């Protein structure tokens, strides 16, 4: 029971991170119907910028932890969002209205480019970060002296995710930008005829996705304490799996899918084997696609002739 609870807490934390990345996939897929393969790399860049921001703040002598967190969060979101915007502008916008495969190849190229760009600039070695937020709350202890613990960092991650989710749902459902996004999702030509700036809306979608991925990157940097230039690939694939699991195009679906993937991974490594935890995620993906191809919260797609 105690062990189960501990895995549940770990899984929720991991799931929050995957969910934040998955939102970027699902928004982009919803609006232009393309797998943004380089989104995992954007998350990796977010992690690196957070690491560099933490180190710089340390050098500048700012050691008050909440202030550090706020500054790093804003810095990482801003710079990573600019990366997301540039990526769309260079690699995807010229290909809009082209064949279906062209943007995907371009995205794979972008992914390879960004990985090597960071590797060349920051080195291939694993980068460690000293723990920023320490300590936690002991929830319960059993007879074998196994204590269930939720760390302050885990609380921070889960609370921040919930807050960001609420904020972004609000943006999508209430603001003019969200309305424009939903309009583009349904019919891009019609939306542009009615005065929606399609290019700008798509750019902002990429910016939003990248900002959320940056938050995920910052969380991972603090949570695991080590990052390298290669973390984007696997996290990206898993987050995409989460997006598909929840139903591509659905924002709550992405979050739900992320949480499920996080839980599956935590329980699998807790109860079965650590080596095959990635296999478990992919197996779940295959099973979901076979039995419920639209995902858990997705709407069935009507094929038109």
């Amino acid at each position, binding site marked *: 029971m105690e062990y189960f609870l501990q895995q549940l807490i770990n899984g929720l934390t991991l799931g929050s991170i995957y969910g934040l990345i998955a939102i970027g996939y699902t928004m982009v*897929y919803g609006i232009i119907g393309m*797998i943004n393969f380089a989104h995992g790399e954007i998350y990796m*860049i977010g992690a*690196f*910028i957070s*690491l*560099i921001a933490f*180190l710089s703040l340390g*050098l500048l002598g700012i050691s008050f932890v909440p202030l550090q967190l706020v500054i790093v969060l804003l*810095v990482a979101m801003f*710079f990573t969002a*600019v990366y997301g915007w*540039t990526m769309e502008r*260079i*690699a995807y916008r*010229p*290909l809009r209205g082209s*064949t*279906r495969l*062209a*943007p*995907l*190849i*371009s995205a*794979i*190229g*972008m*992914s*390879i*480019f*960004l*990985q*090597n*760009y960071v590797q*060349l*600039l*920051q*080195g291939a*070695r694993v*980068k*460690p*970060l*000293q723990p920023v937020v320490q300590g936690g709350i002991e929830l319960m202890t059993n007879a074998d002296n196994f204590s269930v613990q939720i760390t302050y960092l885990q609380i921070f991650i889960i609370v921040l995710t919930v807050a960001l989710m609420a904020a972004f749902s609000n943006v999508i459902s209430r603001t003019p930008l969200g309305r424009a996004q939903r309009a583009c999702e349904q019919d891009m030509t019609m939306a542009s005829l009615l005065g929606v700036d399609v290019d700008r809306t798509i750019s902002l979608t990429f910016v939003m996705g990248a900002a959320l991925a940056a938050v995920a990157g910052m969380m991972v940097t603090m949570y695991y304490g080590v990052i390298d230039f290669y973390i984007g*690939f696997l996290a990206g*694939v898993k987050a995409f*799996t989460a997006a*598909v699991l929840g139903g591509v195009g659905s924002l709550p679906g992405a979050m739900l899918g992320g949480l499920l993937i996080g839980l599956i991974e935590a329980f699998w490594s807790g109860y079965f084997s650590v*080596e*095959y935890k*990635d*296999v478990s995620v992919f*197996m779940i*993906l*295959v099973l979901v*696609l*076979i039995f419920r*191809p639209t995902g858990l919260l997705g709407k069935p*797609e009507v*094929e038109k*002739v």
Partner: protein
Amino acid sequence: MAVAATAERARIDFPAVLKDAVLAAVVAFVLAVPLVGLQTLDQGANALGIKTRFDWVAYGTIAVFLGRLAIGYLLAVRARPATAAGTSGGLNALAATVSQYSTAIGVVGVAFAVALPFLPFSSVYVLDVATKVMIYVMLGWGLNVVVGLAGLLDLGYVAFYAVGAYSFALFAQWFHLGFWQALPVSGILAATFGVVLGFPVLRLRGDYLAIVTLGFGEIIRIILINWSDVTGGPNGINGIPRPTLFGLSFLNPDNVAEDVPTFSGFFHIDFAVIQRYIFLYYIILILALITNAFTLRLRKLPIGRAWEALREDEIACRALGLNPRNIKLSAFAIGAMLGGFAGSFFATSQNFISPESFTFIESAIILAIVVLGGMGSQLGVVLAATVLVTLPEFGRELAQFRMLIFGMAMIAIMIWRPRGLLAHREPSLRLHGKSAARRKAAA
């Protein structure tokens, strides 16, 4: 005339070009500050320091500004006369010419490939690179069946390549099968894997299929790494036997026992290392040519037509009574089988395999070869494979920038020619034959 030219030039909107360049420079500056300007520095035990490199940021920003200015100016100059048919017209015409004379180009290409080992510049190194090119050509042709003809996006093609390589290595290790006995078995095994994977997932829409195949590729790789008892784990499998020519091995006769027949001993010629490379090169050349003939033949059969029809319109196919799942499955299985053959050749030519050779990047490179060459174009695959495999060989000193440039090239080629370098849609069936169509085009 001169007056007209100046008047034309004056119409270029310099302030707009300049504004664009300044904007690009500002963006480049923002992008560069955190990752280029600040570098993490290892400082012993688990500690990182920061080094600043703001001079690099300045150079980068200036380079982007000047580059953007030049591009903006060139685009403005070129945009004036013919807007649409300007840039890629030359390559379009080339692609059309190539497809028109594809038979002739093919014959010349094959003749060159056959003669390559005996040309004056040929060496062990050249043959090694040529063998590598041919492996990718074969993989490209195999994947072309799946992606180019049947229109199924497969991001995990390397899985079948791995299945082929490992099944040969394991057959050799456990049952002492030689290359020629194991080759058909590993092809069939890879095809079986294709069917087993394809059966549940092939009814999915394109992008889902892509991600499932990617996941499958990763699963295979993770299993190869972790199932150490059988696959040797990250260390891979060593000492895979080399292929023989009707039982004649290509070993040095001085180093083997008397009763082992060797190529040089049998034909009473001097032993040379290059003989083995020539032999390997011819094996892969023949395998690739068989692949080519096989796929070209398949395109003319009902199954091949069904693939292309399915790619164009699945609903229409269904209405005409075709079974999409079986047709897709056959494309998947045949593609997998060809990948398996290539894999088992890879294992025998390398003598050693490990999971590192079967990462996602390999799948991406093979897919890039198919798409960059021009989907469905057999010659395009050869061109793309030659470019992508030999380019890194030229830039050995630039080795660390290799993948960086590779990624940039993929983006650039896609933007420049989204349908691929030699993309040219030829109908595979005509009412009055090819010559009639050509006459009509000439008239």
